[in-house]
């Protein structure tokens, strides 16, 4: 069966899987940002925490994804549902680029700007919210962008533990030795990744601090 014929016949199913896939990615990214940005801020502010935080994120990144899904499977609450398990594993992967870019963004703020802010009598949280975060926003967003593209790709593997999404087609196609089925998962996944990259890239350019543009 040709690829186009397969797409025409199963478009409904493919759309369904794409939505599932997108949902996995969106939830993962929300979680990863909610955890990664505060961790990045912490690592930037307390240099002694920087190594343990970045180190752990680095280690998580090096675990092969299939193995990570396997490791998390026996955990009581996480292993109970496939989507929970998938989101937990994907979040772990998405953390590193977000933490790293948050640290880079904040430590990259011009020391003179920070000194002036302190000398002017701004409190620590005022410096964070009004100076450091706005000035590192585009760098943090670049990290989110990398993490999103990464997550779109790895989320296909999550289908191995039954979490659904576009990976279903890929695994099914592999089992059936049918390229059309594999492509029914791979093409939409690639399109999702490209779209995410494009949209976040545009946003990043728009939000870049005036001095750098």
């Amino acid at each position, binding site marked *: 069966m040709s690829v186009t014929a397969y797409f025409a016949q199963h478009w409904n199913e493919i759309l369904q899987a794409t939505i599932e896939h997108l949902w996995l990615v969106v939830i993962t990214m929300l979680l990863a940002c909610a955890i990664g940005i505060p961790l990045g801020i912490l690592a930037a502010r307390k240099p002694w925490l920087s190594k343990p935080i970045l180190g752990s994120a680095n280690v998580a990144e090096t675990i092969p994804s299939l193995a990570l899904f396997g490791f998390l499977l026996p955990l009581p609450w996480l292993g109970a549902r496939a989507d929970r398990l998938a989101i937990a594993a994907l979040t772990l992967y998405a953390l590193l680029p977000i933490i790293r870019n948050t640290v880079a963004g904040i430590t990259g703020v*011009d020391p*003179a*700007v*920070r*000194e*002036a*802010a*302190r*000398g*002017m*009598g*701004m*409190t620590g949280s*005022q410096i964070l919210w*009004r*100076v450091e975060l*706005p*000035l590192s926003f585009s760098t943090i967003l670049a990290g989110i962008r990398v993490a999103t593209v990464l997550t779109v790709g790895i989320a296909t593997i999550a289908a191995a533990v039954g979490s659904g999404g576009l990976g279903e087609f890929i695994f099914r196609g592999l089992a059936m030795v049918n390229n059309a089925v594999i492509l029914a998962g791979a093409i939409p996944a690639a399109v999702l990744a490209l779209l995410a990259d494009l949209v976040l890239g545009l946003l990043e350019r728009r939000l870049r*601090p*005036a*001095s750098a543009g």
Partner: protein
Amino acid sequence: MTAETESASAPDAIIEFRDARYELPGGQVLLNHINLSVARGETLVLLGRSGAGKTTALKLINRLLDPTAGEVRVDGKTTVQWDPIALRRHIGYVIQETGLFPHYTVEQNVALVPRLERWPGGQVRTRVVELLTLVGLDPVRFLGRYPHELSGGQRQRVGLARALAADPPILLMDEPFGALDPLTRGEIRAEFRALEQRLRKTVVIVTHDTGEALELGTRLALLEAGELRGVYSPKEFLQSNEPVAAAYISQLRMVEKTERQP
């Protein structure tokens, strides 16, 4: 010792260093045995070469650093007794690199401290316009600009306006004109002097430029390797026979001589 240094415990001293010392955690002593007082309304210049401890001394005043021994008093209270935020809002701070917020317009930069102090909006706006005019920038043209759209001299003027915004009685300036070309530097310096004569702030300026020190200072405090070598009026400084002071003067004379040659 001169008459000026004896006035160290003058009752109108607004800033006082009492045997202040600052040592890095590694044991390197950046300032030692500093006894110095700054009278209300005067312009004290901290003069010295790079690494003499000038900037460190300045940072002890607004509590960006705490003395490791001795104390620094501002308005009669030691800096450690002050709440650092309240102390810093009481003191204007200008640094060489200006430290203007690149994501803020000129207006937002100048309005920073009044906003932090929760002034009413209308009053902030009036104050910003007033200050820009004061430092010689046309408010209509400059309010909406970003720092990267300004020349070095304009940035330094905005930095000064920002430091003056909440009308602090004390102004600290760390090589405020150091990054400017000589012509702009001369201009701004002259303007600042005129401005200072009107505002009557207590000013402490750090510089390594003898000419600048003599032009702006009512008194010069000479720092060398973390120690205070003496405090002079400009006239005393020029007549001083002490080798350190003499070195600065001869450097100044040399510059003047080269500048006069065709």
